[in-house]
Every structure is written in C-alpha cells, then in structure tokens.
C-alpha cells in the first residue's frame, strides 16, 4: 500500500519533523518503497503465532527501593541549550 503525500505529512506531524513542501513527494516514494519491502511479510500466515517482543525469554528483574542518585543538576544542565534558575527553558507554553 503506497504512502500518500498527505500521509507523509500526517506521520511527520506525529514525529515532530518538518518536511518541506518540495520534499514530500520524494518521502512518499521512499517510504512507499520501504513499505513495499515490508509487506513481503504478508506472504506468510502468522495466525496463532505468539509475537516476540524480546530475543530472550527472561523476566524483569526488580531493584531494591533505595535512593542511589545524588544531585547532579549542574553537570546535567551544563549541556542544556537553555536553563535558568535550575529550570530547563522552552518557549512559553499556553495550556
């Protein structure tokens, strides 16, 4: 099933990517050809096959409820594009 230019824009919107008008067509072509490759999966019947989310048949290990981390704000905010008074800054959000 080919991906239409409208779908390209819809997906880009969900993924927070800005696709320029003159790129939309090429993305539609590229993504369609990938989806075309992917749809080779339809050749096999997978009814009743248990999906495999993980390569290992292991279960989640649980951590003891202990505080192990200390304040490293300065170190972390040294790589922040914009921080002030200990807060990360983004353009004003109106809720």
């Amino acid at each position: 099933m080919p991906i239409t230019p409208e779908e390209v824009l819809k997906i880009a919107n969900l993924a927070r990517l800005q696709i320029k008008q003159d790129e939309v067509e090429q993305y539609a072509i590229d993504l369609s050809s990938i989806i075309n490759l992917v749809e080779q999966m339809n050749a096999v019947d997978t009814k009743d096959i248990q999906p495999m989310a993980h390569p290992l048949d292991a279960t989640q290990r649980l951590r003891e409820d202990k505080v192990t981390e200390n304040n490293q704000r300065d170190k972390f905010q040294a790589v922040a594009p914009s921080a002030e008074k200990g807060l990360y800054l983004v353009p004003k959000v109106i809720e």
Partner: protein
Amino acid sequence: MQWETVIGLEIHVQLATNSKIFSGASTAYGAEPNTQACAVDLGLPGVLPVLNKEAVRMAVMFGLAVDAKVAERSVFARKNYFYPDSPKGYQISQFELPIVEHGTLEIVLGDGERKTIGITRAHLEEDAGKSLHEEFSDSTGIDLNRCGTPLIEIVSEPDMRSAEEAVAYMKKIHSIVRYLGISDGNMQEGSFRCDANVSMRPKGQEEFGTRTETKNLNSFRFVERAIHYEIDRQIDVLENGREIVQETRLYDANKDETRSMRSKEEANDYRYFPDPDLLPVVIEPSFIEELRKQLPELPTEKITRFKQEYDLSDYDAENLVMNKETAKYFEEVVKNSNAKAKLAANWVLGDLSAVLNQDDIEINNCPVSAGMLAGLLDRIEDNTISSKIAKEIFQAMWSGEGDVDAIIEAKGLKQITDSSEIEALVEQVINDNPGQLEQYKSGKDKVFGFFVGQVMKLSKGKANPQQVNDLLKDKMK
C-alpha cells in the same frame, strides 16, 4: 427530557516509595528544581530503566484490597507523545497487560444506600515533570523532579451516576490507599489526583453518550464541582440540539468552570508498544499470597467490626473509618474511657472534627490527645459535668489549658448534684417568675423550658439538668 449522568474516574495515586519507579533518584516532595532528576529521569541518551520492587509490591497490595485479579504477567508499554515535561518523548506505562484488573469497590451514600463500583484496571506508570508557566515572561520552565515518581492509575467502570457517587468512590479509594500505606494521599502536593469522564444519556437509554474528560482534579470538592458544571453544560448543549465534543477539559477552580484544553485538542495517537528496555513482570502466586497475609484491616472490614463491637450506626462507622487515623484515635478514646462508644463517636465526629477542620489540623497533630478526650467523656459519664460544660472544657483543652480535671478545678465547673442546692435555685426561679408560673399552671407546657433555662443560667450551667427537671416538675405541680 430526563437525563442520566454517567461518570467514570481515572485516579492517579503516587506511591510512597523512597526512590523513583525506574531510577534511584529520590521521590521526596519540594526539592529545588531538577535536583532530584537523575540521568534516567532526564532521558539522557543511552540510559535505561530498572523497575522498583516496592512499586510492584504496592500495586499488588492495591489489587488485593479491591478484590481484583493480580496479573501473573504484566508488560510495560511506551505511550508516545511530545511534551516538555515528558523528557523521553514517551511515558512508560502499561497498556495491554496491566498489573491489576477487574476489581470492585462498595460505596455507601448519604442515605445509607450501597452501591458497587467496578474497577476496570490499575496499572503502574511513571509520573511526568512539571511545567512552570509563571516563572518567566516568555518562557516556560521545566522541573523534572517529579519525573519517574511511581503512580498507579486506577480506572473505574462508568458505573457512577452522580457527583455524589463519584466523590464517595474517590474518598473510598483515598481511604484504601492510605490504609494500605502505599500513598500519602496528599492532594495539595498532587499525590492523589483525578480525571473525570462525564457523559449524559436520556434516561432509559442503554448506549452511552459522548464523554468529556476533565483533567487533574486535586480535591474532592473540585471533583464534585467540576462534575456538576459538566452536567449542566452538557445538558445545556444537548437540549439546544447541539452535540457534545469528545475532548479534554480543564477545571478552573477560580472561575468554577471547565474549559477545553487547546493544547491537548490535537488528535492523539499514542502509538503504544511494549517497552523493549523492560522485560515482562512476572509475579509468583506465592508472592501474592504472602502479600495477602500482610494486608491490614481495610475500611470495609473495620466498618463491620465497629458496628458490631461498638454498636455504632452505619453512618458513624463509615465516617470514623474513612480516615485511618480518625479510626485509630476513636479506638484509643474508647479504650481509655468508661463512656459509651456512641458518646465517643459523637465527640470525634462532632466537636473534634469541627475544630480540626476549622483550624486545618490533621488528627495526628491534634492538641487534644485521645487520652484527654477519654478523660472528658468519663467526667460526663460520672455526672461531674454536663454535656454543655463539657463543650466549654473541650475548648479549653484545645487551647492547651490542661486536662479535664485541671480545667474543672481551675474554673470551678464541677456539676452541682447536691439536691438541696439545686432545690434552692429552683425555688428562687419559681418565686421570681410568678407570671410564667401562672401560664404554666393554665396548661402552657412550653413554659417549662423557660424555667429549666433560668435555673441552668443561675447555676452557670453547672446544675445537673436531670435533677433540675425533676425538681421543677415537682415544685410547679
């Protein structure tokens, strides 16, 4: 048209763990911004989550408390959406296989009617950070301390039909999580918050109407008000022939109204999928059984016991038990006093609750200890003081003037039970009021109260009311 309200609640409860659900950062409230957001909470590139055992234990405890099925295998999923207080661009939650499913909860309404509310599911998830819009003029500040605080989201069936029912349900859940000790339930600090799904349908219709979701209600009163507002708004919309828009709304407590949240209006497609950084959580049946044994006495059991053991009404038992600490206080009063349990219940739910409310004090910090209140009740019981004087003494105890006997002594409030003393007062009042006596004798029974009042006044409230009654009746024959 007759409308029926349909309400379902989603309650978010912060679990009282020491550390975050997926990291070793502290969950303590009120720290300086971003000082409790570690690499994992910040979603730095390359970091990975590891699940907190205590959060799992607490979720299981909740499941057991509401007679739910605790899943032997549950799975964490990613809920994908972009927002600055969600640093990874997804929230780790549970979707298809939650840890708790199919629970029930019984609520008791004001008229004593009982109703069972279904709990669809309760799942574990991480809390988001906070956006601070007021701090800067053109920017929003992001504090990620709260990120990763463990939550259980408790989703009810759409079983409630009024704001009253919704509040009763919410209070019951609040009471349970506090009894279990899995949350501090502090609503001001956001440890316990609620989203309300409200829809209307014509009475008799089976099919549900379109619902709205009102977000982040952090007090019982707000839930009640927001639901009332939504009911009125929706009926208005429907009766004007328009349609309800399925949307997220925000309750504005200052204006007492709900309004559409533009920022969330955009169609959400959360693209849930199993989180590949976490493996399935498997809970052994033996672990569940072990926790079942550790369950404390829960509100419902306690209510039954209170009614049996203390011969209390449904209403009294419900209200005493609602708050774990109140119930504990009540039992201590009873244990330390010779007075009837009913008297203790009246005092705890009456005068004591009133002043606690008025001064906004938790019962744990109450200046009148259970032992002190027990002493007061004993003095009522042994007729040392009247109920009326008891109230005065209680105020003095509240102000820190000492225990009951000290106050009686200091203020000379001991009840007069010497009948000759009372007789003198009665005679004085009869002699001073010949007109009223005339009326009484001509059949106006109501005037009797006047005489009682005058005698009590003359005794400064200290005369034993029963004796006053008896003597007056005798003398005015």
